């Protein structure tokens, strides 16, 4: 069971004073050991829903981020199962929360954030899963998959070197969506009425874009540039050694 520490909001001090005190500070996550020998960590930070921002840098392990019940709190639960990695969580004066894992070891995160949060996530080895958010998302994995689902975000940039990337969600006008994998599959599952300009490129994989009737500007087996609607949003799909699938949301 993960032990959750009291939120700073429960303190009698004002949020502003709290953030100020943490501007240069460092907070170690509260740890508890499980019977299996794994270590569990938890921590909650007060944030402003309008400008909630989270950055996670993880050496190995899964990062799962989803919309939480509270609109003004980031709740972090982490489990360290291998090695002796060090986890640091800090919050700067602007309220941005940064979690950084250093050293060797696997740490799996489950993080609840306000739906409007901006995310910047990196896991060298391990998956990233982001669900039901509306803020900008940048997700980067060197070796592992990225799944981004149930989104209503205007900016998504997901890339991995080895692994698959999938995105499903709304396509907002003037939104920018970049999904890339050096050697892996790229999947984009979009609403039938999505209005976008597509650039899809693969070196040695295939492309299945047949789910949408598009107007093609360029069309070869390696590069496709096309419009669906008038091309309000920009969608860029790239893989060097994998295949690209553009599908309709059921």
């Amino acid at each position, binding site marked *: 069971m993960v032990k959750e520490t009291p939120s700073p909001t429960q303190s009698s001090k004002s949020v502003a004073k709290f953030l100020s005190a943490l501007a240069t500070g460092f907070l170690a996550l509260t740890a508890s050991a499980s019977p299996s020998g794994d270590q569990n960590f938890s921590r909650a930070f007060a944030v402003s829903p309008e400008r909630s921002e989270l950055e996670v840098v993880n050496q190995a392990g899964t990062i799962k981020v989803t919309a939480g019940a509270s609109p003004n709190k980031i709740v972090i639960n982490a489990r360290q199962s291998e090695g002796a990695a060090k986890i640091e969580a800090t919050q700067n004066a602007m309220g941005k929360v940064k979690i950084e894992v250093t050293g060797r070891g696997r740490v799996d995160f489950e993080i609840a954030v306000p739906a409007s949060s901006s995310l910047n996530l990196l896991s060298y080895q391990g998956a990233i899963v982001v669900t039901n958010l509306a803020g900008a998302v940048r997700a980067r994995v*060197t*070796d592992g998959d990225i799944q981004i689902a149930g989104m209503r975000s205007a900016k998504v940039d997901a*890339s991995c*070197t080895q692994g698959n990337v999938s995105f499903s969600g709304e396509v907002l006008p003037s939104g920018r969506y970049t999904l890339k994998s050096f050697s892996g599959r790229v999947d984009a599952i979009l609403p039938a009425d999505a209005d976008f300009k597509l*650039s899809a*490129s693969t070196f040695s994989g295939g492309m299945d874009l047949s789910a949408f009737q598009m107007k093609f500007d360029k069309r070869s087996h*390696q590069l496709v540039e096309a419009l669906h609607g008038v091309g309000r949003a920009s969608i860029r799909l790239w893989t*060097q050694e994998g295949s690209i699938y553009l599908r309709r949301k059921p």
Partner: protein
Amino acid sequence: MECRAVVSSLSDYLDGRNIWASDDEVEGIETHLTNCPACLNLKLELSELKNAARELPLHTPPLALWTRISNAIEAEVPSENGPARETQNASGWWGWLNSRKFTFSLPQLAAAGAFVAILIVAGISGIFGANQAPLKFQDVRSGLLLPEENEIKANLEHRLDAINARKAQWDSQRRADFEQNMNKIDESLKLCRHMLEGNPNDAGHQEMVRALYDEKRRLLEDVERLKW
């Protein structure tokens, strides 16, 4: 087929496809080449080398040189062994090979030497994967194919130098993973640049080269953010 097998068969394949290799081997090599950018790249380089060697002028050695060589060989063969040709025939394939008269021009010999060197390097990198030497910016061509290429390369090189300086402190697994990823991207980059050179206005290949530079930048950025 695996990369190692394809690399060792490439010279036979390029010499005339089915003269040395069986139909199955040829099919295996061709299937592999369509799926493996690294081997395809090697094949393209070897083909280039071969074509370049073919275009070089053929220099015929002076008759006096052949006479001296011939005299030297005859002086080494004892007369009681009988005709050299028959002795060699009796020893099978090796004997037959020895009995053949091969003549090579100097450019051909130079090309063959370079060819063997490439095979050795490719074999070593295939066998040992990541080596311990610092990674250098992999780029065989100096000509710019993208207007912004100089800037991109300078930025990447600067970052890679900083990482190379720290890499000795990494453990071997981490170093091997990083170098393997970098090598894969570099191989693809080399291949895509090669294709772009053939058709500099091809938007698809321009896009690929840009995407690969971006992938390389992201990989270096990962290492920086991870504070390795």
